[in-house]
């Protein structure tokens, strides 16, 4: 269970969007500039809240009053960025292995093979990111985050840079990820079609506030 109760002063408004997520895929839905990415950056530890606390299961990630601010690399939260951010100097195989390697975990060929099959990226393993299409790159980015065995997966508009055909290719993978890998997800999007297919729960975020909470019907 993820509990987020933080405040952060951003450019024109104060972000104050408390919420609780209990597994499945929670979508943060709303116009760009509403503070959605800032929320997940604070969960990941890439942005520091002004006050409040963030708790994931039994781990306090951030607590201003208690002076707790767990380092990004200790949080074990997977993050799929809008632009993939694959490491250009490493092969796809090494990109996928990076999180396991950094975590000091032994190789897990079964988990590797499963993620590779789920995302259909087996034919890319020996290539480098520079040669991949946008869709392939995002699938690898999802695999890389998944293979670090995260406690939570953050996805920041993972399909925004792709055309609609490519989006339809990748969305089923993400749905399978939600249903088969059972990793809790926080998914940022402003595309209603995407939200309807992936969301277990939707929170509408506008101007740094949560203006509505509900199911996928919220985006209609």
């Amino acid at each position, binding site marked *: 269970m993820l509990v987020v109760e933080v405040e952060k002063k951003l450019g024109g408004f104060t972000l104050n969007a408390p919420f609780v997520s209990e597994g499945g895929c929670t979508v943060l839905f709303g116009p760009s500039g509403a503070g959605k990415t800032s929320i997940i950056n604070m969960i*990941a*530890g*890439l942005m520091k809240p002004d006050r409040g606390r963030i708790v994931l299961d039994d781990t306090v990630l951030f607590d201003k009053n208690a002076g707790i601010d767990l*380092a*990004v*690399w*200790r*949080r*074990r*939260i*997977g*993050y799929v*960025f809008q*632009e993939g*951010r694959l*490491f*250009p*100097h490493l092969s796809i195989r090494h990109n996928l292995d*990076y*999180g396991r390697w*950094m*975590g000091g975990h032994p190789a897990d060929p079964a988990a590797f093979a499963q993620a590779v099959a789920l995302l259909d990226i087996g034919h890319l393993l020996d*290539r*480098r*990111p*520079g*040669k991949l299409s946008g869709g392939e790159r995002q699938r690898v980015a999802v695999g*890389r*985050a998944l293979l*670090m065995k995260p406690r939570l997966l953050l996805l920041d508009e993972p399909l925004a840079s792709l055309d609609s055909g490519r989006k339809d290719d990748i969305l089923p993978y993400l749905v399978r990820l939600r249903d088969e890998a059972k990793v809790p997800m926080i998914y940022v999007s402003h595309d209603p079609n995407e939200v309807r297919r992936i969301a277990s729960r939707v929170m509408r975020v506008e101007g740094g506030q949560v203006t509505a909470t509900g199911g996928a019907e919220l985006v209609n």
Partner: protein
Amino acid sequence: MFNLTPEDWVAVRLSLRIASVATLVALPFGTAVAYLLARKNFWGKSLLDAIVHLPLVLPPVVTGYLLLITFGRRAPIGAFLADHLGIVFSFRWTGAALACGIMAFPLMVRAIRLSLEAIDRRLEDAASTLGANRFWLFTTITLPLALPGIIAGMMLAFARALGEFGATITFVSNIPGETQTISAAIYTLTQVPGGDAAALDLVIVAVIISVAALMASEFFARRAGARLHGV
């Protein structure tokens, strides 16, 4: 092909050794200083920047003189190093390497700093979400991404060290077999009547070494760059 005398060969070998040692020893320091200047904000940063660049703007003879009064046998730092660590710089090839390293330092730092500043920091954020602590972040992401700049910096430093003359001759003099580099040997030959012809062979060797160093660095930098761009 060349009419190099045994003494000339000694100077060539010495030059290569001094330039290589100067470059390799300067590398970790140059990388550290470049990292500080590119990434950190601290009190005295512009002062550090100025000190690093000083050898670039000072007359080399002045740099050599300053080395003499700090690292000479009786100078404070020089005496300490000699008495406690057994490291002697004055009138030794190690002193020549020190002078060359310091003269080459600003060029090395500039090249590495530029490549560090060009790195997409978002890749480093991605690595830390994947569990990389600061050490692993630096060694597995930052350093490899800066590699083309590091190679360029090493090449510039090596070339600069090879051509160093003023600071070296001021600091450690011009002793054949110990501190007489190609540059100093050429200078010595040209001071003797009729020595120009003998100097020409050394000049040709100097040109060949410089061109070879340039081509090698181009080759390695291109290979490193190609790796980065996924070819």
